[in-house]
């Protein structure tokens, strides 16, 4: 590793840590700045109508103590950091006495299994469409591009609701919600797996469809730019085959698209919120939505911390990869 490279990595790691610390503080602080008193809501659900005011106060004090809310904000932050290091993230308020780690542990696999394939497929289809539209023009450029653009302009909840109404409610082709049939018990058998796959379709396509357009537009303009580049003209002049030229163009136009992919994978947990809520998918997005509605600070903080970490790691990895794959970055940073 050259001296320049080491310096480059040191700088990147330094900023990574600074950003991370700032993010942890904000993750802790921001949810707690929301108005609303979570303990009051829990007690409101629990007290019997005849309860005397003194006894209600007893309950309030009990929960405040359980959640550590009777400590100063610094004490609470200390608890938060300790719990984060322990990996439990403390207890959830709305699902007390469940730990936050337990909630996240049961949701994150559903989210990743839904989001990552959907993002990859959307990205792949979008880039293919963009490249083909740029090169082939004709029907690809005049019909498919505008259609996919139109789809990407539909907000995520809109796409999900439209798919739900058409394919689940009206046509009955797909189940309306959940991750598998409500009467099923998770087990490693074909019945269960096929139920998971059929429940997977609508949320999956609702994410794919809206991401195609955005990717395609970027890829198309990058490709058109590259198609007009000198090296393409020169290659044509030399009589190099079309297929080979397209491969050159695709590789070069790809670079900025990789950034987009990494960022969307990084933010997949946050992006899961809409599709998951609409399809009652038991992932992290649903957990986060429920936590926000019920002022469940520890769950919100932990979810946002995960999102922050994923985005940070994605962009950090990107910096590193770029250093190797893009000669321009290499030239600018290492020397």
């Amino acid at each position, binding site marked *: 590793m050259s001296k320049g490279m080491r310096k480059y990595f040191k700088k990147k790691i330094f900023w990574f840590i600074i950003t991370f610390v700032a993010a942890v503080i904000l993750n802790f602080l921001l949810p707690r700045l929301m108005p609303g008193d979570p303990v*009051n809501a829990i007690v*409101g659900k629990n007290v*019997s109508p005849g309860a005397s005011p003194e*006894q*209600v106060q007893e309950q309030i004090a009990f929960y405040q103590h359980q959640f550590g809310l009777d400590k100063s904000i610094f004490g609470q932050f200390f608890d938060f950091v300790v719990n984060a290091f322990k990996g439990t993230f403390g207890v959830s308020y709305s699902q007390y006495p469940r730990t936050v780690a337990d909630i996240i542990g049961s949701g994150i696999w559903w989210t990743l299994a839904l989001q990552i394939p959907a993002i990859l497929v959307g990205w792949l289809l979008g880039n293919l469409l963009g490249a083909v539209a740029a090169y082939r023009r004709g029907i690809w450029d005049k019909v498919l591009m505008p259609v996919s653009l139109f789809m990407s302009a539909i907000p995520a909840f809109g796409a999900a609701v439209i798919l739900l109404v058409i394919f689940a409610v009206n046509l009955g082709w797909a189940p309306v919600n*959940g991750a598998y049939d*409500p*009467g099923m018990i*998770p087990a490693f058998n074909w019945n269960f797996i096929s139920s998971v796959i059929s429940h997977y379709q609508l949320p999956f396509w609702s994410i794919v469809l809206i991401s195609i357009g955005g990717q395609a537009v970027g890829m198309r303009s990058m490709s058109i730019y590259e198609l007009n580049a000198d090296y393409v003209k020169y290659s044509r002049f030399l009589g190099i085959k079309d297929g080979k030229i397209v491969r050159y163009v695709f590789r070069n136009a790809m670079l900025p698209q990789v950034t987009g992919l990494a960022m969307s994978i990084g933010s997949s947990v946050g992006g899961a919120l809409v599709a998951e809520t609409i399809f009652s998918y038991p992932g992290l997005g649903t957990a986060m939505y*429920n936590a926000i509605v019920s002022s469940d600070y520890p769950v919100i903080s932990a979810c946002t911390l995960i999102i922050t970490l994923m985005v940070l790691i994605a962009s950090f990895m990107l910096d590193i990869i770029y250093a190797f794959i893009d000669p321009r970055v290499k030239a600018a940073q290492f020397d």
Partner: protein
Amino acid sequence: MKKLLALVLALSLALSLVAVAGAEAPTDLPRNETMYFGGQQWGPAVGYNPLSSNMNNSMALASAPRGSRTIMFETLYMYNMLDGKLYPLLADGDYVWNDDLTEMTIAIKPAAKWNDGTPVTAEDVAATWDAAVAVKNGTYTGYNAYIASVEAVDGKVVIKAQLTEDGKPTNPLQFYNFLSATYIAQKAWLDTLLARNNNDAAAVLNDPANDVAYSGPYGPYVMNDQLVAFVRNDAYWGQDASMWGKLPVPKYIAHAIYADNDAALVAFKAGQIDVNQQFVANIQNLWEVEGLPIATYMDEAPYGICATMPTAWFNMEVPALQVKEVRKAIAMAVDYDQIIENAMTNQSPSFVQVPRSVMNPTDGEQAMYDHDAVKDLQFAGKDIEGAKALLDAAGIVDTDGDGYRELNGEKIALNACCPNGWTDWQAAMEIVAAAGQNIGLDITTNYPEWSIYQTVFTKASQTEYDIFMYSPAGAEPAAPWSRVRSFMSSDFLGVDNNWSGNFGHYKNDRIDEIIKTIPLTSDEAELKALYTEATQIYLDEVPSFSLMYRPEQFHAVNETVWTGYPEKDDGNNIPPSDCTDGYGIAALYNVSLVGE
């Protein structure tokens, strides 16, 4: 690249399957043996601890005076809101009071057994109370002010009252709530629970109690992020002739966990939910227009039994609302028929059909006050001219010609609030605001999120919300006394986190006296006089005003799989309380499969 993508895709799918496929033994639920419920369980359940209110397991643990859900744990009595009576469950026959209402004695059914085969005894009931006191749970919080002890004497349960200084019981009415709300737990299991948690209250209340003993007809089957399900205990004691004489029909009780009301409604319409507890606007359209096999307790509006009355409370800290005429004028001007038609889509009787009072519309409560004595006070709404005349007479007029009336030179501007997303309530508040505009009061609406709303309106003192909505006590054994108290008692003044009632902070000494007297009064004529007077004060002073009547639990059924649900005038006297609550659980013994 493509190969890599395919690999990642396959791997993540496989991983997710492995992650969710635990080592759980139960098999899938056969549809024709399972009754699915909706609208009760939100978010995953935590455990089965009957002492705790932290389990979020609402199919197993929903204890309430208006009728506890007794599929897993049982109460001494079951409340029936149709006739206002308590029916014995674990108890054998009626309770017996001593002469001065300080002691109640209850026998236990000899047939009653725990799922481990041991009998349910008076000692179990006493131990349940002792454990509640030890860990200060909801039972303790709710009844400690009224119950001094629960003891086992000669095989019977003896409940002793807390006494006032002059030796009278503090409130015998609360005993009835206790009987219908308290799940009885097994003494042997309670001893284990307390011992394994070293008697630490927080640890006891957080114990998920997966080993708990239960006396009800169903036991735990599945609990995960998508589903809670219970399986019938075929050795259930209730098949004895002294109780039901048979087992409940569905083998499994299940509740899928939906993200929100919309998702649950879609599932209900698709026949994935059999019994649904959810407000559905224009519910009649589901069968009249969409032709679905969906039914309610009654074929015609209001479709259900309304037992509570969502109410608009006046904030007594707002100067304009301290003037009785302003309060009354607003209440008189509101178009209640429009609220009932638009907000409730006619799932409520009108205030002409059931004139307003402190009573809910059930026959039992309506008989408890003298209708003629309060006739002149029972405003039915939309009386714009009357309201204007009332304000004019009080000297509250528009002096500066801006179209709005002033009080002491200041324009009367008020907000009308309810939680955002509670659409029927929001529709009601729009109509209240319109009424204000019609009589020269500048009322505007404001809809904060529930997480904020609940913090503000339960404060000991607040000036953020002027007119705001919440419900008073509903149907329960201690009603309508508990409703009078929740409307007007000064017991709740000056306390933060007030969920008990009198949210507008009204004070009236005479009402406080009436609230103290009613529980100790057994003479029916005297009781009626007291309730009539309470109604007079409430309608004359207008510290709050009800906007609609409303079922406490919505009860709609999809008869794709099961049929034979309770219906009005079917002669069974089973209330539409979702086939599980209070005496409503009797429905589970009457249903049958469609086509059988």
